[in-house]
């Protein structure tokens, strides 16, 4: 019976080469099913020893694993419908399906792995295969996104590799995962870097907005919903949670998390591409996860509550975020469809943590940990973050709303995004993808009522009210401005650290050329590439909220909103029940 655990990993691996053939593309739908079957049939502590595999490995369930496996398998299954129906049989989709299934196998393997080598194998397989998902169906912007992703992923994998080596040093060749040895400072740093890249923790995030906005909808859905959650699982597995208190590291985590949480929200607010808005929201959530981990490192006694809260939070975020990306994919086909728009708004509300949504429940469960230190500044910052998240989602809804007077869906597509060409003709709406998406909407909508008690439902009501009060006048003000009346827009965004790094990279290439003399065609190509980029960054299309996007305006707005919030919070000491 526990052989089913092996099937969970093996079935996607074996189906991967077969699914390359266009006629067998439906196999993609089957691949995630063994995971769901396994969850239904196997006992909660099923394990399978495989002493001959790798360096001697084992697969198995525990509490956390089951939740991660459930939402991961769900996200992949629903994305698979899109892969089969929407990507269809266009050129390059065979390769896409192959890599999709390989990444799936890696993702499931690392969740089930009971020892670090198996975990690492799944992690590496998943990370590399995802490169091909971002690249599909080609084009300059995607190649660039893919390159940045690949470089950072490799660095992340190597950091994790060294961290595991240093942990294994005292354990023999490998060890059983729940009994993790207490790591030293170097190991924690490496874990922070290795998983921080995967999660998109600032400042390790530059790949994330690029990749999320470049990848096709199903790929972005699994990247954000399933693959980036792996980082959290890794931290839960490998950090010494509940064993010892590490006050210095705890504080570092808290601050890193807090910076990521708040800065990403601010940067997200000035984005023009809804995918990028979602990307920055993911970065801010990564910050929240790290913040929570930091609080657990400070206070080990909270670990059982905290781990449960983090797992629940991950499940909520995975479903909602992948739903948003899949929904954006549907919206690109037909922006006017009210059902899609309504669904996206529901998901945006859930992500913002509005009352009666999964986001509110997640927040409610995490609250005991968040309030545990009792620092007033932390409460203030969290309050600010909640309001800013709501504003970010308002911004998202604004961006997906068809602009008046603009016929096509153009205004929301970012200035250097190549147009997402609809693969199916407009008349044939992908009905199965829509059905799968509605199923996901149902899951998200039912989430707080199945899992939470009534006392959790009104969480965040105060914050939402504040956000509404801020957003409404702003929206009105912008509506009344004529398009094109602002100062010229800065074309490069703060979030794109990569853009800033490119001149440095070019300079390095020149220096290397001088040093090594002969230089090969590969590097020539890269250089040509980099120079080509400059020409591709054209001027953005004009649209009504252009002035808001301009940096000076946005910066002042952000500052103003922050001050306003602080004032509000000081006047009404806390809207969060202690």
């Amino acid at each position: 019976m526990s052989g089913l655990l092996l099937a969970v990993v093996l079935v996607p691996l074996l189906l991967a080469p077969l699914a390359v053939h266009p006629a067998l593309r439906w196999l993609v739908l089957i691949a995630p099913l063994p995971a769901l079957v396994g969850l239904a049939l196997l006992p909660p502590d099923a394990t399978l020893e495989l002493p001959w595999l790798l360096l001697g490995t084992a697969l198995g369930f525990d509490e956390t694993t089951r939740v991660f496996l459930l939402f991961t398998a769900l996200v992949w299954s629903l994305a698979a419908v899109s892969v089969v129906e929407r990507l269809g049989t266009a050129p390059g989709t065979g390769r896409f399906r192959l890599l999709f299934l390989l990444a799936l196998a890696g993702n499931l393997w690392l969740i089930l792995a009971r020892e670090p080598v198996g975990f690492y194998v799944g992690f590496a397989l998943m990370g590399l295969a995802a490169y091909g998902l971002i690249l599909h169906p080609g084009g300059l912007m995607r190649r660039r996104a893919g390159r940045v992703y690949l470089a950072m992923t490799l660095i992340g994998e190597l950091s994790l590799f060294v961290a595991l080596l240093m942990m294994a040093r005292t354990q023999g060749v490998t060890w059983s995962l729940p009994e993790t040895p207490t790591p030293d400072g170097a190991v924690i740093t490496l874990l922070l870097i290795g998983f921080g890249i995967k999660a998109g923790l600032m400042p390790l995030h530059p790949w994330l907005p690029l990749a999320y906005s470049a990848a096709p909808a199903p790929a972005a859905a699994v990247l954000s919903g399933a693959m980036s959650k792996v980082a959290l699982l890794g931290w839960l597995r490998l950090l010494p949670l509940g064993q010892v208190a590490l006050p210095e590291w705890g504080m570092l985590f808290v601050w890193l998390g807090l910076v990521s949480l708040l800065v990403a929200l601010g940067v997200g607010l000035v984005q023009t591409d809804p995918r990028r808005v979602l990307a920055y929201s993911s970065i801010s959530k990564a910050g929240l996860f790290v913040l929570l981990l930091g609080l657990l490192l400070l206070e080990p006694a909270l670990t059982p509550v905290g781990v449960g809260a983090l797992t629940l939070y991950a499940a909520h975020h995975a479903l909602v975020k992948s739903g948003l990306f899949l929904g954006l994919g549907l919206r690109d086909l037909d922006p006017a469809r009210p059902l899609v728009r309504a669904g996206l708004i529901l998901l945006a509300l859930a992500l913002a943590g509005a009352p009666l949504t999964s986001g509110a429940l997640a927040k409610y469960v995490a609250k005991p940990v968040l309030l545990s230190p009792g620092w007033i500044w932390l409460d203030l910052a969290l309050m600010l973050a909640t309001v800013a998240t709501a504003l970010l989602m308002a911004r998202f809804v604004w961006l997906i709303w068809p602009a008046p007077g603009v016929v096509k869906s153009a205004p929301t597509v970012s200035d250097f995004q190549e147009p997402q060409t609809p693969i199916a003709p407009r008349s044939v709406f992908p009905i199965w993808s829509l059905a799968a998406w509605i199923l996901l909407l149902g899951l998200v909508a039912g989430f707080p009522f199945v899992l939470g008690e009534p006392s959790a439902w009104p969480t965040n009501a105060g914050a939402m009210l504040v956000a509404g009060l801020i957003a409404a006048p702003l929206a009105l003000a912008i509506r009344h401005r004529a398009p094109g009346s602002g100062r010229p827009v800065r074309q490069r965004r703060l979030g794109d650290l990569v853009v800033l790094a490119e001149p440095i990279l070019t300079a390095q290439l020149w220096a290397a050329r001088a040093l090594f003399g002969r230089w090969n065609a590969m590097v020539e190509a890269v250089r040509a590439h980099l120079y080509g980029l400059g020409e591709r960054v054209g001027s953005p299309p004009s649209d009504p909220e252009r002035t808001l996007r301009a940096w000076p305006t946005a910066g002042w707005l952000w500052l103003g909103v922050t001050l306003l919030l602080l004032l509000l919070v000081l006047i009404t000491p806390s809207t969060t029940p202690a």
Partner: protein
Amino acid sequence: MNLDPYLPLAIVLSSALPGVLIFLLGEDSYRLRTALNMFGALLKIVLVGWMIWGVFHGHVYESRLTLMPGLELVLSADALSVLFVALSTVLWLVTTIYAIGYLEHSPNRSRFFGFFSLCVSATVGIALAGNLMTFVVFYEILTLATYPLVAHRGTPDADHGAKVYLAYTMSGGVLLFVGAVWLQTLVGQLAFTQGGLLGAAPEALHGQFIVIFFLLLAGLGVKAALVPLHGWLPQAMIAPAPVSALLHAVAVVKAGAFGIVRVVYDVYGVEFAHDLGLLTVLGVLAATTIIYGSIKALSQDGLKKRLAYSTVSQVSYIALGASVLGPIATIGGLVHLVHQGIMKITLFFCAGNYAETLGVHRVSEMNGVGRRMPWTTLAFTVGALGMIGIPPVAGFVTKWYLGLGAASAGAYWVIGVLLVSSLLNAAYFLPILYRAWFRPPPEHWPKEPVLSKRLETAPSLLWPPVVTALLAVIAGLLAAAPFSPLEWATLIAEREYGR
């Protein structure tokens, strides 16, 4: 009758005799030559299988020929020699099949296959050598048997490459010989002994031991392509693809690395070498070579040249493993002897396939090659990912053990070397994979003869890389299974460290 004493000799002769017979055959006797080749290769596999079983159960196999008092040729089998013998035997079979397909219409095939067999016999002799003098003898035979293979094409370039090869390896051979004789005058006949035998010698000799180590290392380092003695290897790239494959994976380069392992573990003894400070020297040399080779590989456009510099870098992992004290690092180095062999032979087979099928010799010509030759490119991908050390390909197992061994011994700089090397490997292999799989193919390939109607290339060219790529995955995926290279390397390490 007890056949045990004849087994090592039989293993050497199983390729040497067919080789001699092949010289006598006419150019046209294609069938007889192929039959002889395959007979030798298969017989050798059976004999080696027998020997593996015996050594695992503690049997002693020893063939001994006394030339004069104090000078004996000894062939004997211990766990370490069996590792190398098994590698050469399996890869010889695969390479022979490949070479038959590769050289189908070229001249001088009898000469080629004759020397090819002799080359493998010499390698097996090196593996089974029971003392330092026997080792030196076979080492020299290998040098001479390989020269005609490198020069095979007979073009000016080939002549030049072969001359450079001969100049380097003969000089190295002299140093090795001087070192071996000097050592023998000090301590008498040197049978390879697990745990080493110089540690017991009087302390007055230690100074001379250090000098001798440098002589031996210089002699072996030429073949193992340690920087700065690696100059011949990229030049020898001119040889036909099967020769390059054998040179890089099994015969010449590996013989040098194997020699270093023998000297460190079974002549000096790893603990004694550590006490003399010799391991540090070896480690620094190996680390330099690893980084230097990778950097040079980055700037090569010729596919085979890039692979050649990659060999320079990867073979030194073996020496790096030997330079760190402790059983885990030892396992990492030893297992790479096998892992590097299967992965690199795959890459060279693929490079040969691209050249023969499409006329593609350069990395810059490889756009879209994955669409035209998916199976070959798949094999290449496995090999390349393995070189970077990405699981579950075998290279990852090596890296895990080397890194773990270094961490256990507190030699953190080794981890740094591994990291830099991995990044550099990624930097010169991943662009190739990107070109092959994600770029559109050109309208016409440089040269495209019809080799097969159904398959992407001739079957005898296609199957060898696919099989070796599969072996590379299996060696990594089933690393903990019985009789895997890793388990065997663990057995050797246990015997070396006397546990």
